[in-house]
């Protein structure tokens, strides 16, 4: 288990335990983290699990693949550090990961 911290658009943070191998989106849903809708359930088909990855963690998380980049077109307020959390797999290397959720998903 590793720690992931979710901070919402208003600045409230929640640190939860994440299972290695799960996705960041699944971790959020299992822990009832607000700000992640995940309408499609992790199929990279809806862009409602949009997060901003903390700059310090960008290299560890890695870049989005093309399908995810395409799906980000459906998200709002997209920034260079935007990712879809259903496409980020939790690894030991991501222990301490910090992400922020946007003001609106869908």
């Amino acid at each position, binding site marked *: 288990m590793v720690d992931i911290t979710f901070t919402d658009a208003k600045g409230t943070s929640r640190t939860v335990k994440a299972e290695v191998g799960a996705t960041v989106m699944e971790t959020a849903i299992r822990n009832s983290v607000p700000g992640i809708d995940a309408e499609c359930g992790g199929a990279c088909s*809806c862009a*409602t699990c949009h997060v901003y990855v903390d700059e310090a963690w960008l290299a560890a998380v890695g870049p989005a693949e093309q399908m995810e980049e395409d799906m980000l*077109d*459906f*998200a*709002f307020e*997209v920034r260079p550090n935007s990712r879809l959390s259903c496409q980020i797999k939790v690894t030991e290397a991501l222990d301490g990961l910090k992400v922020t959720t946007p003001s609106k998903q869908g």
Partner: protein
Amino acid sequence: MITTDVLIIGAGPVGLFAVFELGLLDIKAHLVDILPKRGGQCAELYPEKPIYDIPGFPIITGQGLIDNLETQIAPFNPQYHLGEMVTSLVSRGTPEAPRFEVTTDAGTQFDAKVVIIAAGGGSFQPKKPPIAGIEAYEGHSVHYAVRKMESMRGKNIMIVGGGDSALDWTLNLKPIAKRITLVHRRDVFRAAPHSVNAMRSWVAEGAMDLIIGQVTGLDGADGVLSSAVVRSDDGTEQKIACDALMPFFGLTMKLGPIAEWGLNLHENLVPADTGTFETSVPGIFAIGDINSYPGKLKLILSGFHEGALAAQKVHRYVYPDKKLAFQYTTSSTSLQRKLGVA
């Protein structure tokens, strides 16, 4: 006014399979869906994704499941009303003999003995960008779809997005618009290559504008838009004159008018009885992801079961004087005749 035994709201997998279970009991159904196609989330969100938990199918795609369901229910000749949203439901009967008058946004009217809500996560509706004050312009200057092309003639139109909807409307409106500005967050477009090429050649000729950036603000008065602020990735902002804005950010699911039908919603879900899947209103049933009861699992297979049980109770409303004898499709010649196989 269309008279039907049952009106099913939602043509996803669960609504489609309900047609089968109703059909075996000689109950006819019409289906309404806001999407222009059958299949609900399976067809809209994950047509190519494999599903692994449909009994009897170790692996099947979303679209594959819908295609099979359509084949399976074809003998019962279901009537579809696609691209329409049910907007009102009025009770015209009694608890013992319910009847409902149901109207869609396209003006289609139904007189139904029973209504089955199989609306899944709600109706798919256009995503609305979180731009401050955008609501004030919706309807007049901000459009998520165009019903009458002519209404856009001579306008400065800003289209936002990079998929087929954005590019198709760019191409369609270009001949009648005063000027088209296409705004997209990156210089990569998912739309069909020939549309992208047409757009790029117009931009090269100076016949339209392309801006890489995101809309962050709107200016105007009394619901009439005058300009939009577009911010680029480097933080620079520019104000673009426009009197129509068309954002294309895909679809999201919203509960919609169901919330107003007196069904005692619990967390945006419709509570249903687990023996019949009838709601608190006699004659209105809820099956699939839209319902809630203790132990509910949002699985397609659960929705199939719910439809089968609901059909038994629906039979009592549609044929109050007939006794229902339970039969199997494997052994009943009468059921096999209905299926066209005996």
